[in-house]
């Protein structure tokens, strides 16, 4: 039998049971849709995160206390007090670390801030002017505090737009006081609405001089990180080595496994995040694949019903010259057409929902740079997987149909 006629026969067979065919492919539609969504949103998230890290500049390194976390057990390492002024000065020293680097210590914590009767709990960062340059965010009202504010341990703050709205509403914030831990800080600048950058929601941040944060608020003498910005990207690996050697020498460490600090570069961060997001995507795709399996079983079930309903037709076709192969092809084509249609609908729905999710993330989640990402490979994958499911789950019903003896099939009531 010619393929075009088998195809026509299969389409006619499906069309006679339109409602049933539609319901049958629902499982495949949902399965393919979820896989497409997981793949597209996963890729979008990865791109967004990597973009943000890249935005931080590939010239930037972050020296952090504790050795490079190897697992959950190493989390306590970040409480190590191994980085203080001594280390900052050592890193700034050109005899230790090559190049004309900019170095800025950093401390951060969460607390409640208030103005008059308004209160909110938020992230408080102790930083310097360099923070602003690295983030590339500048106040729209007022200005950033200066290095002399840092030296003088001034009680000044720059706040994000959301903090301003929460605490001050419509009225001006610059020149007013906010209270943190029972102390007053003068607001000198307000950031414009910026959204999330480098995994931080800039809008709900409060930036203070790191000296003030350290001494006045936390009463500590160490830092949570030391940011280092090199002149050029090419110098980064050498600087990382220099920092390691310098700090190991200072802390008397001979075995690198016993480091009480680690230097993170953007490249490291991108690699880690890339592997985390791909692992997550794979996991979620597997979960979505389960619904495809269920959908495939649904297809098999309906095809078996269809085969037994059409037993007489099968008998007749065999009596007038259909071979086993003809019958198998006919029923296989039916199930493959079903699943491929399911795959196409799933891809369209998946693309639609991916777009909607992207829209929601941009509009309501603050990730302005979220891109709608729809991989062409997902289209081929979707159709291919759906077709393969049709083949696999259609094979059993089709072979059941072909096996029927023509006379028994014709006698079937």
């Amino acid at each position, binding site marked *: 039998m010619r393929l075009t006629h088998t195809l026509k026969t299969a389409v006619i067979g499906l069309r006679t049971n339109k409602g049933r065919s539609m319901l049958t492919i629902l499982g495949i539609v949902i399965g393919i849709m979820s896989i497409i969504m997981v793949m597209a949103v996963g890729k979008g998230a990865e791109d967004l995160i990597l973009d943000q890290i890249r935005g931080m500049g590939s010239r930037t390194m972050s020296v952090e206390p504790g050795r490079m976390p190897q697992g959950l057990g190493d989390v306590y390492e970040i409480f190590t007090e191994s980085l203080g002024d001594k280390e900052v000065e050592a890193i700034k020293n050109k005899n230790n670390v090559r190049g004309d680097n900019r170095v800025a210590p950093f401390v951060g914590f969460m607390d409640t801030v208030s103005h008059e009767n308004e209160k909110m709990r938020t992230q408080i960062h102790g930083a310097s002017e360099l923070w602003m340059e690295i983030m590339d965010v500048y106040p729209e009202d007022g200005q950033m505090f200066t290095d002399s504010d840092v030296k003088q341990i001034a009680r000044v703050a720059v706040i994000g737009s959301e903090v301003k709205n929460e605490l001050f509403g419509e009225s001006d914030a610059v020149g007013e006081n906010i209270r943190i831990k029972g102390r007053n800080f003068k607001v000198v600048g307000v950031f414009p609405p910026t959204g999330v950058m480098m995994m931080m929601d800039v809008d709900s941040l409060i930036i203070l001089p790191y000296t003030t944060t350290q001494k006045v608020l936390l009463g500590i003498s160490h830092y949570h990180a030391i940011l280092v910005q090199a002149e050029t990207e090419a110098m980064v690996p050498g600087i990382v080595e220099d920092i390691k050697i310098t700090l190991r020498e200072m802390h008397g460490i001979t075995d690198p496994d016993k480091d009480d600090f680690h230097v993170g570069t953007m490249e490291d961060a991108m690699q880690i995040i890339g592997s985390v997001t791909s692992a997550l995507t794979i996991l979620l795709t597997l979960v979505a694949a389960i619904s495809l399996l269920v959908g495939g079983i649904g297809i098999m079930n309906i095809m078996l019903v269809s085969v037994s309903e059409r037993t007489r037709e099968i008998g*007749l076709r065999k009596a007038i010259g259909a071979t086993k192969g003809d019958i198998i092809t006919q029923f296989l084509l039916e199930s493959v057409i079903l699943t491929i249609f399911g795959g196409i609908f799933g891809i369209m729905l998946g693309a639609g929902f991916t777009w909607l999710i992207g829209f929601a993330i941009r509009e309501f989640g603050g990730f302005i740079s979220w891109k709608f990402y729809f991989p062409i490979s997902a289209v081929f994958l979707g159709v291919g997987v759906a077709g393969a499911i049709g083949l696999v789950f259609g094979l059993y019903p089709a072979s059941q149909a072909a096996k029927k003896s023509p006379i028994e099939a014709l006698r079937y009531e």
Partner: protein
Amino acid sequence: MPIIKSKNISKTYYAEEIETPVLHGLDFEIEEGEFVAIMGPSGSGKSTLLHILGFLDDQTGGTYHFNGKKISDYTGAEIAHIRNKEMGFVFQAFNLLPRTTTYDNVKLPLVYSEYPESEWDEMIMKAIEAVGLEHRTYFETSQLSGGEKQRVAIARALVTNPTIIFADEPTGNLDSKSGKKIIEILQKLNEKDKHTIILITHESETAHCAERIIHIKDGKIDSDKKVRHQKDANHGYKK
């Protein structure tokens, strides 16, 4: 060479260890161009015999030669090919495809054939013309009367121009007028187009429209005689 040669064919059904013998060793030959009626009371095994002759069922004993070759020597694909090219079937229950037109029902065997598609339309129209259903060509078969349905089935059986047409009680579901029309068509196919026809019936009048009658009783051949005065479809003597 006879087109059909049955040597000691027997058939026993097995169901849950109970043996039901249906045919007990039948010997006969049918030449090309013959019009043979197989007669017998219900349960005599005549339908089973027809199914074996038409490759729709397997015998359990004896040998069946079709066109000089033992059936067991044919492959599955060859058997499908012979059913398509050499044989046409007309069933008591019509067995037409539902929600399908006369034209598409008649086309069905061609779909499985080796005839080039360019010739199909002519072949289909010729077969429909042979059963006098030109005015019903594009009707769905559910809109046709019983007699017309059976004529569609005959057109389907003869569209590939087969050597043999097997008709299993073709008039069984029809009123006598429609039944006569069917027999008339079969007679014409035999005389004019030289198709071999094997007709199963339990009506003596219908059987006498054939040239030869094989009587089957309890799975054995009771008699195998030429019809001395062949009747026409209206049961008047011919010539």
